[in-house]
């Protein structure tokens, strides 16, 4: 949680420093503490509750580099009243931040293994901190593959960064879109079609998966059919998170609370109720 805050329900004021437009409805915001507080340490995969004053609060994954905690980075898609209010903020304006909350990607535990990252749509945002970590500690891992799918070219996040990552000789980046004009030279098809040809050893790999739930269900099936152990598949779930600390019960998922026990789970842990419609 924010340094110096003893009550996790009290938001800290953060000032909007920089805004980058990712797609027609998605922005990346860089925030700094408005009250001069220090850094904002977090682990890859955690989230914050962002409070647009007078409108409401939403859980948003942290999308910045855990190695650079001076700036808090969030990628926000304007889809509801609160996220639209956040995306309308101007440089210098303030929003409330509570967090960081939740579990994280097991990047340290994955040392010595291959790592395959599968992202769908805006699901790349919660995975970006994990990729930053892996690249900062590249020597600790075997092969690293990023497999990323979006609906169209216009929906791809972090395009300049994707190009930079492609230039890394020790990182395999494969991107696909559902549909594209004939002039496009890249992959067309859903993200799951890239998994069979991604280069990693399924018996020595850790998979980090994030995207809409239906995409994650089919991704898990593909990973399992390649031989990845469910214990080594990690997914990030989303439900209606309100308090962020497992008190209110809004995000109950089976026997867990996503805000407290998740959002990152081992697939083996939640397999019994992952595809249950009633949960």
């Amino acid at each position, binding site marked *: 949680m924010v340094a110096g805050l003893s009550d996790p329900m009290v938001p800290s004021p953060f000032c909007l420093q920089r805004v980058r437009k990712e797609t027609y409805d998605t922005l990346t915001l860089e925030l700094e503490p408005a009250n001069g507080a220090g850094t904002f340490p977090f682990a890859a995969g955690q989230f914050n509750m962002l409070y647009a004053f007078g409108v409401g609060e939403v859980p*948003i994954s942290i999308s910045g580099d855990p190695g650079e905690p001076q700036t808090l980075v969030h990628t926000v898609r304007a889809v509801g009243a609160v996220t639209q209010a956040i995306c309308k903020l101007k440089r210098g304006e303030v929003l409330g931040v509570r967090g960081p909350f939740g579990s994280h990607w097991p990047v340290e535990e994955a040392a010595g293994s291959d790592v395959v990252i599968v992202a*769908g749509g805006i699901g790349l945002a919660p995975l970006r901190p994990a990729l930053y970590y892996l690249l900062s500690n590249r020597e600790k891992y075997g092969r690293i593959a990023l497999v990323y799918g979006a*609906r169209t070219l216009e929906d791809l996040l972090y395009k300049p960064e994707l190009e930079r990552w492609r230039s890394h000789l020790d990182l395999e980046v494969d991107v696909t879109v559902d549909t594209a*004009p*004939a002039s496009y030279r890249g992959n*067309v098809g*859903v993200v799951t079609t890239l998994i069979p040809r991604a280069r990693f050893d399924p018996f020595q790999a850790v998979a980090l998966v994030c*995207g*809409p739930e239906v*995409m994650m269900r089919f991704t898990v099936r593909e990973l399992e059919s390649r031989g990845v152990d469910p214990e080594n598949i990690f997914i990030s779930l989303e439900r209606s998170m309100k308090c962020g600390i497992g008190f209110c019960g809004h995000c109950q998922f089976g026997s867990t609370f996503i805000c407290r026990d998740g959002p990152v789970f081992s697939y083996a842990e939640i397999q019994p109720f992952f595809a249950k419609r009633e949960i």
Partner: protein
Amino acid sequence: MENLERVLTEHPFFKGLNKRCLQLLVECASNVRFDAGQVIFREGEEAGVFYLIRHGRVSVETFAPNRGPVIIQTLGEGDLLGWSWLIEPFRWRFEARAVELTRAIALDGTCLRGKCEGDHELGYELMKRIAHVIENRLQATRLQLLNVYDGIRS
């Protein structure tokens, strides 16, 4: 021929196929290459062949009024291109174009249909493999129709 048999053996599509069937297939196979931008087949043309891609990338396209040519799928190393040679009226439903230099094994459909009629073990093995490809493409198409990326998460 020995080289072609080795290439067919190593291709994922024919993984596990017995030697006798492979030797029958080799009689219908040839090496082909397509330069970047080269059209491999066009919608409506007679479909007398299918391809097993060894290297490169191929786009499967159609033409949509007001949108122009649209890529609906790309295929790469290890993939099969085309099954219209197997299903009447043996006409391509889409256009295929090499996105980059592409090397493939072409299998003559007329030759294969004849061999499959005469050797039902070969026919069954081939049909199982093609059904698997069609099933995978159908699943992928369903996911595209679902628009799986349109979640609400931020």
